[in-house]
């Protein structure tokens, strides 16, 4: 993909931080509101796709290596399974929620009812959302990157 005009770039520069923050918001609030790791990751990856469209695939490829993204993707999945395996160690059951009620990270147990405001709940669920988020960001971005690379091989050859 070739780069676009200055107008498009300026708009993309303004929009990009908002997209990132919205995606991160969806990931961190995954255990409270609709959405979660996958949805937030998809939002962030679409922000990265915005960069790719406006600045062109060559510009992006000089800054980001797809091997590194692939490694991040693996790490997201490994993180997810590791948290599940830690459940066996700490609460004697696979996928056990060992952080809930522990007063540590995300350890609050809210009173029954609407507790949308308390982010510090959910036990291991937010951590798993982060792991899924990392996997989805890296995975979707590397797919878009490879597709744009494949489509621009012809252009570069000329």
């Amino acid at each position, binding site marked *: 993909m070739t780069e676009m005009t200055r107008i498009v770039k300026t708009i993309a520069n303004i929009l990009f931080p908002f997209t990132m923050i919205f995606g991160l918001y969806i990931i961190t609030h995954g255990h409270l509101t609709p959405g979660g790791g996958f949805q937030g990751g998809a939002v962030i990856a679409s922000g990265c796709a915005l960069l790719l469209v406006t600045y062109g695939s060559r510009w992006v490829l000089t800054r980001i290596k797809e091997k590194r993204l692939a490694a991040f993707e*693996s790490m997201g*999945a*490994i993180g997810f*399974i590791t948290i599940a*395996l830690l459940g*066996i160690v700490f609460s*004697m*059951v*696979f996928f*056990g929620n060992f952080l809930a009620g522990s007063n540590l990270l995300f350890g609050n147990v809210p009173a029954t009812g609407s507790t949308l405001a308390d982010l510090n709940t959910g036990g291991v669920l937010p951590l798993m959302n982060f792991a899924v988020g990392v996997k989805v960001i890296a995975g979707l971005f590397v797919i878009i990157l490879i597709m744009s690379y494949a489509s621009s091989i012809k252009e570069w050859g000329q």
Partner: protein
Amino acid sequence: MTYLEALIQHSVALIIAVPLLSAFLMPLVSRVHPILRNIFALLMLTVTGCFIGLLTTDVLANGPRIYIFGAKELTLPLVRILFEVDGINVFMAIITIILAIIAVIYSWSFLDKQDGLDKYYTLLLLVVTSALGMEMTGDVFNFFVFLEISCIASCALIAFWIAEGEALEAAFKYIVISSVGALFVLFAVGIFYAQYNALNIATIAQAIQFSFLDKIALILLVVVLGMKAGLAPMHMWLPDAYGRAPPSVTLVIMSATLASFYGVLRILFTLYGNILPTSIRFDLPLNVVLGWILIVLAVVSILIGVIMALIQSDLMRLIGYAAVAEVGYMFLAIGTTIAALGAPYATVALHGGILHVLNDALDIGLLFLVAGAIYYVTKKRSLDDIGGLARTMKFTTVFFIIGLLAVAGMPPLNGFTSKFLIYESVYQLNPILSIIALLCSILMLAIFIKVLYATFFGPELPELKDVKEAPKSMLLAMGIVAGLAIFIGLFPNLFLDSLVKPAADALLNHTQYITTIVGGI
């Protein structure tokens, strides 16, 4: 609680978790060194195999075992994801892990000069995970999820030799057929959830009513899983996929196929077990109708498999059609069991069918490994271009002879035992079926004798003068399979008594499966 008890208790989850974790560690490990990657894959599958062994000894001694994810005990309403493992589950898991370990040993030298092997091993381990998950889960939706994982990962593996157009075509055909099939499974799961408000197999099996919607769900599930297992009218993807994928991949895809076959067993015997004897119309019980439909489809797949194998000139495709015929034998046994539910010979047929799952995996697997070895040294697929290989490839020739005798059901190899049990029991239902099965088996022997002469015997071809014997890891993989085939052939009772009979009992005694979960609340 001792460590061993804790290990056995958690082995149900670890059997899924270990290959899944190692699949995603694979891209990182293979950055270090290619040999470390191969050792890691082998080691992790061996660890999984040890867990399966532990679980098998426990399940055979103490009956079904359940594992609840994320909670210590069951509470009502039953919303937990849970795995339930009984005799048939551990039997299938053993087959899957044997095939996976052999595939990894084989691909050590078979694919050593190829690109992208980190992704290959990742996908291979994912297929193994999905097959094990399908075989151990106690939840219909979970079954669908693992089915979908196996579709996508297998599709990418079938297209491994992407430079060949046919591999791409086979992969495309596979992904289209299996994703449409997986959606049908999802539809059936939705039907169950809408009616019974449950996704747990045991809970649905206890509550099932056989309403109009249940009939639709039964048809959808049997059709889709029969298709994934390679039953006749929907078998067209199987020879393509088996024939165009690398043989090591074929082995793991075969384990996913057999997991679908297990799905058919679980659905017919457990999920619909309570209502099998209900009569649907004209005093015809459901089990007789269903059994005869399966028998007809099975006979059609045996005939199609054998007749199409007769005219193939591509070796791997030929073996693919032989695999269709073998699937037909398994479904013939299952159909007989269901049609004659309660008769003494129904149990014999089920024993034959279940033992034939193991034998089919080993025999067809061995033939594919030999075909892969021939492709590795000659780079040719067609039977017309190869000949006289026995002069240089002595071990491979011996393995091929073992494989062909086993697949044709000749004593003293493993195929004989299971096929004999099938003939014997099917004869009591209807002698003609047994005669067709026997004749097709003889025809299969003739086909493979033809292949044996075309590839290994006959005059030496000038362009194949410098071929060498296959590398050691491939010979080792073939040797393990051949050894197992001979061992099962010589001591069939060992396997029948220790593994097959508990598996058949677990299927026939479906109330035990239900009460293990429903009674435990």
